[in-house]
């Protein structure tokens, strides 16, 4: 009985929290006049829906594909580069570890909008702007890597050390202990961090906007800004586009979340 009461409260909280998301869908269904009308209507009065027009008319398949390329690239690169570092920083103690952690955190400081100028200069010199999606992946990886390392480090720090030491005593290599003890035990943290990195990179805007000039290689969030003209802002279109963009990710995430977050409760081995 108590459990269902909790469910009811949970639905209440979640509903309140997701109100802005509802507002996005509601606005997507309203016409221009109803969007600005006041008092505002909670439920669209003359709902209309032009998903097809927005999806194909705005080249969304191509944009979404490019976003996917960027997000997959960044996530893969971040996992390969960052997991080991997070492990070492989560295990070792000492002055140099402090210094490293400090350095890693520092690398995350500046907003993309301020880093993009020097990166653009550098990438131009290196000729990377000829492969703009790669340039965006490289830039966004630098942005996501510190974040990933810091989160994973906390997870590795939580892995009981004695299991690993037992393996070493048994004569296993540290590399083996890393892959077979530490990584599996910290997998929840790694997964969550990777998912967050993926989603963040999927929605990357600043680098893509500045470095990708060919519309065929452009990403979905930049495509969204096409609704904003000098004298126009097509809110209905923006929200429709955004609904198309958000809904599948949200569904995938809710489905996957059973694995990702629900697995958390069974996470610790102790």
């Amino acid at each position, binding site marked *: 009985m108590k*459990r269902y009461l909790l*469910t009811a409260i*949970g639905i209440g909280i979640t509903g309140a*929290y997701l109100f*802005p*998301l509802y*507002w996005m869908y509601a*606005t997507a269904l309203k016409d221009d006049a109803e969007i600005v009308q006041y*008092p*505002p209507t909670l439920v669209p009065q003359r709902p209309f829906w032009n998903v097809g027009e927005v999806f194909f008319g705005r080249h969304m398949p191509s944009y979404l594909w490019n976003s996917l390329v960027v997000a997959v690239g960044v996530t893969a690169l971040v996992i390969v*580069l960052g997991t*080991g570092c997070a492990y*070492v*920083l989560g295990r070792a103690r000492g002055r140099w570890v*402090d210094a490293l*952690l*400090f350095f890693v*955190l*520092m*690398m*995350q*400081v500046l*907003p993309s*909008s*301020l*880093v993009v*100028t*020097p990166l653009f200069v550098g990438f131009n010199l290196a000729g990377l702007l000829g492969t703009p999606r790669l340039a965006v992946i490289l830039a966004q990886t630098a942005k996501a890597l510190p974040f990933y390392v810091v*989160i994973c*480090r906390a*997870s590795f*720090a939580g892995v009981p*050390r*004695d299991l690993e030491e037992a393996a070493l005593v*048994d004569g296993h*290599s540290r*590399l*083996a202990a*890393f*892959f*077979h003890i530490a990584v*599996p035990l910290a997998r*929840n943290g790694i997964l969550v961090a990777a998912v*967050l990195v993926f*989603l963040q990179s999927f*929605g990357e*805007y600043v680098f893509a906007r500045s470095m990708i000039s060919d519309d065929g290689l452009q990403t*979905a969030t930049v495509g969204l800004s096409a609704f904003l003209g000098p004298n126009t802002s097509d809110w209905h279109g*923006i*929200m429709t586009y*955004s609904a198309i963009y958000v809904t599948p990710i*949200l569904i995938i*995430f*809710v489905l996957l*979340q059973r694995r990702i*977050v*629900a697995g*958390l409760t069974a996470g*610790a081995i*102790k």
Partner: protein
Amino acid sequence: MKISGQTSRPGRIAVSALPDPTASTMRLSVFDTFRDGRGLDALLVLLTLVYLIVFGLAPILYTVLMSLQQVDMFTLGDFSRPFVGFANYVDVLTRPEAGMVARHTLVFVALSVACQLVLGFALALFFQQDFPGAGIMRGLFLAAWIMPGLVVGGIWRWMLAGDNGVVNSLLAVTHLHPTKIFWMSDPATSLYAVTIANIWLGIPFNMLLLSVGLAAIPKDLYEAAQLDGAGPVERFRSITLPMMRATLGALVSLSVIFTLQQFDLFAGMTQGGPSNSSNVAQFWSWQLSFQTYDIAGGSTIAVLMIAVVIGVATLYVRSTRHEQIG
């Protein structure tokens, strides 16, 4: 490598899943350093480090350089720019809005981080309980993380609009506040309007990371404490908080950094206005660099922000010294 090939038994994480140690006895010693000793540590760390130096540190150093030079949008590619010492710093810090912006940044960051943490923690604890649908609901919270920044800014701008905003309309219907609040156009509330939106945006991240941290706490600790007669508050204080130290440290520092990077909400809601009443350092820096093409001024603010974050990072690194190691 042989090791991994031999032992890829999915799903097993027990020690017994390890390879037969005799398989790796015939290795060269140089190779061994990279498997077993400091060499491995160094290699793993270097991967990240080198990458960050090239793609992270270099742009920051370039920003520092630009803050000491006379540079605008058109001399970006030039390398022969005149050095002006700290003139840009003097210029930026003596502008009439400088003090105001610094104060707003502080309020914005402190309020955002504190509220995100408290609300995120409360939600994490709530959804930690076992009830039907808890998982799915927790997953739905991530919607905020997925929505494009432009859209989040736009939605909050509509919701908090004075005349046709749904928030005012709900406040009026429920008789909580029958008159309209001009959230974004009243200088007394504009900064808080953006802060509210930012808190909303940061909750899922906090909640998710705290959930991960909570799940990693061994249940038997609680059971033991319960047997000892510790109440829920006592258990939270003596078990949960100390065990969450690493997570909390990471979370707070990342939240501070994320909040300092928040840009879309300012662009979408108030543009720092009215009359700078909701302007913060990162948005001001962007305005100088890209609205008035004064890259030097924008870079200077960025460098000042780095200086502040160095302080925050020091705190974080210190906090990691006290955390529990499993």
